[in-house]
């Protein structure tokens, strides 16, 4: 009889303790969920800020603030003249010439 009473009391205590633990865990979960939501919101805001600051119009505006101007044109740097012909074996020379003509047709007959 005594053992039964002890078991009952212990069970009730365990039940209450479990319930308290469950409620505490729920509060913790709520807190974490809220923190996650806040961090997600912060991330979204920072993402929007990054996108705004890296947009072309922002960059141009900042550049103009710094006194930079658009010269309105493009400068293309021409490739330098080919290097002097190297002394190579006939076979490798032929292979080089063939490769050159295939890959650099726009540079004409200048051999490497």
């Amino acid at each position, binding site marked *: 009889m005594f053992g039964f009473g002890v078991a009952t009391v212990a069970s009730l205590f365990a039940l209450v303790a479990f319930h308290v633990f469950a409620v505490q865990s*729920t509060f913790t979960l709520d807190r974490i969920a809220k923190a996650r939501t806040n961090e997600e919101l912060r991330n979204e805001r920072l993402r929007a800020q990054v996108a705004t600051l890296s947009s*072309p119009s922002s960059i141009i505006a900042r550049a103009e603030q710094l006194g930079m101007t658009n010269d309105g044109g493009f400068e293309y740097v021409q490739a330098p003249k080919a290097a002097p012909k190297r002394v190579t074996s006939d076979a490798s020379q032929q292979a080089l010439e063939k490769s050159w003509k295939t890959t650099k047709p726009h540079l004409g007959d200048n051999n490497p």
Partner: protein
Amino acid sequence: VGRAPAPRPEAKPKANEFKKSRDSGRRLAACSAIVIVVFGVLAVRVANLQLMSGNRYERLAVAQSLRTIPLSAARGGIFDRNGRDLAISIERSTVYADPMLVPDPITEAAKLAPILRVDEQYLRRQLSARPLQFSYLAHTVDDATAEKVRALGLPGIGFVPEPARTYPSGALAGALLGSVGTEGHGLNGIEYLYNSLLEGRSGQLVVEQDPQGHDIPNTQHARVSARRGTDVVLTIDEDLQWQAEHSLLDQVIAQHAKGGMAAVVDVATGDVLSMATVRGATAEGAARVAAPTERNSPLTDLFEPGSTNKLVTLSWAIEHGVVEPDTMFTVPWTTRIDPHVKPYKDDEWHPPMQWTTSDILRESSNVGTIEIARRMRNQDIADALRAFGLGTKTAITWPGQPNGLLVDPSEYYATGKYASAIGYGVDVTAMQMLDAFATIANGGMTRPPRLLDATIDSHGTRHVTPSVSGTRVVSAATARTMATMLEGVVSGGTGLCAAMPGYPVAGKTGTAKKLLPSGKYSNSAHMASFIGFAPADHPRFAAMVVLDDPASVYASVTAAPVWSEIMQSALTRYSVAPTDATDVQYKAAQAAKLPGMNCTVPHGTAPATSPVLSGHPAAAGSPGSLPNDPNPNPNQGH
């Protein structure tokens, strides 16, 4: 004396006890009966409540203690091809009032109006709207504004979170991206077109609450998670879009044009890298990039292409052996098709010339093209237009995109064939014409344009949009021939200003008089365009620029310089190696320029507003033309 007491009767007590016993038994029975009856009644009632009315009371209990909280789905983002944000949703504060708790609406309205930038009278009405307990004051204000309102500490003012659509690049690609309404639904552009993907699926959370309405922890009954909207990845390149918009805007301002359109496509993939719409200055305001609520003109606005359509006529004529590039024609500066119709003319007077087909294209001769068209049947012209995709929507799905207008060849009458051959009596969108040039750039195969590169679902999985396969329109040999002829236009013809160092350019100018509502062609208003591709020998990009009624009548100095600037940006940005190291075409174009010919786009020097356009409507695109006009008689080529 000595009388003995009478003996007590024995039976009497026994009878009393029996009686008592019998009474208590009765009482017990009665009580039991009452208890049984009471419990029976209760049992019946309980059974009645539980079995007969259980559902009703359960519903009432649930309604009293459970609360359903809607979980709104975050709207998907819109990205450019490089993953840069073009549109994102972030949570902002919406300011509301509980009018029952507002003691002094007039004072509060006066304090709030300058911060919220809302009309004070409107705020007064909202703050005084008793017996309501909720009225909106301002939707999705930024954080700084919300903080200022919070700092005022006004009674009856509260905040609720609400998702707000943000476009980090501001007005960039406004007409393309569109906008979202206060309910979170897309209203225009991409936001509208892909709304079902972007808006996701709302969820809900059901929780138990106490009599005061507070949620009771650990009592969650049901949860349907919200599903985030799908992200949309466009083929647009943000930087190139900016370049296209600003080159176009500067020229629209400089030329006092009513508007302009520009687009760049990748010839190999059909990817649309930029699609710009600009509105010209009006009495109401300066020229600007089109707003989200306005039309995305390259896909929606119809206009007569003019001389850019000669590409279609000549490609078909060469493909079907009607002419060769070196076929010789005698070309006077004017020709009469029908005695009842005014003669067609070239743009400038010239003596009768012996011109080849290439020369006719280079000089953009209307009369020469008409001479070529004389050798073609009505059906040939109609087939050519259809084959290059005119009269049919482009492969891009877009709300309000027209098919374009083509005249049935049976209704060409005397002049329809010739008018169509030089780009009149044909209504197209700018993207349709760009498609036609991209077909030549792609070796004679159509390359259907793509605007949607991929979607990214709520799990982060990327689904690439497949390319639509093209169809052959002309042979590769014809396409090469046409590319060479179009190079001639830039080397020594009407497209000099499109030439650029390092890259040979193939392209064509177009200047078309605008059709007036009266059915006659305007003598002053016109559409100027340049469409082409580069590098001409290994085409990588095709682009178009169209200006609505620029000050100069020559597309060669209005549209071509903008085209060149945008194309140079595209080639440089994508590290396309120069294929004309000795600048043969560029030097030839420089040498062929007339004195004083200005091929630059004036950046930031033109006034922001145009007095020339004061009082004019800000309509971009042409007002359209009669599809079956037997006598367009524009008398103007180029």
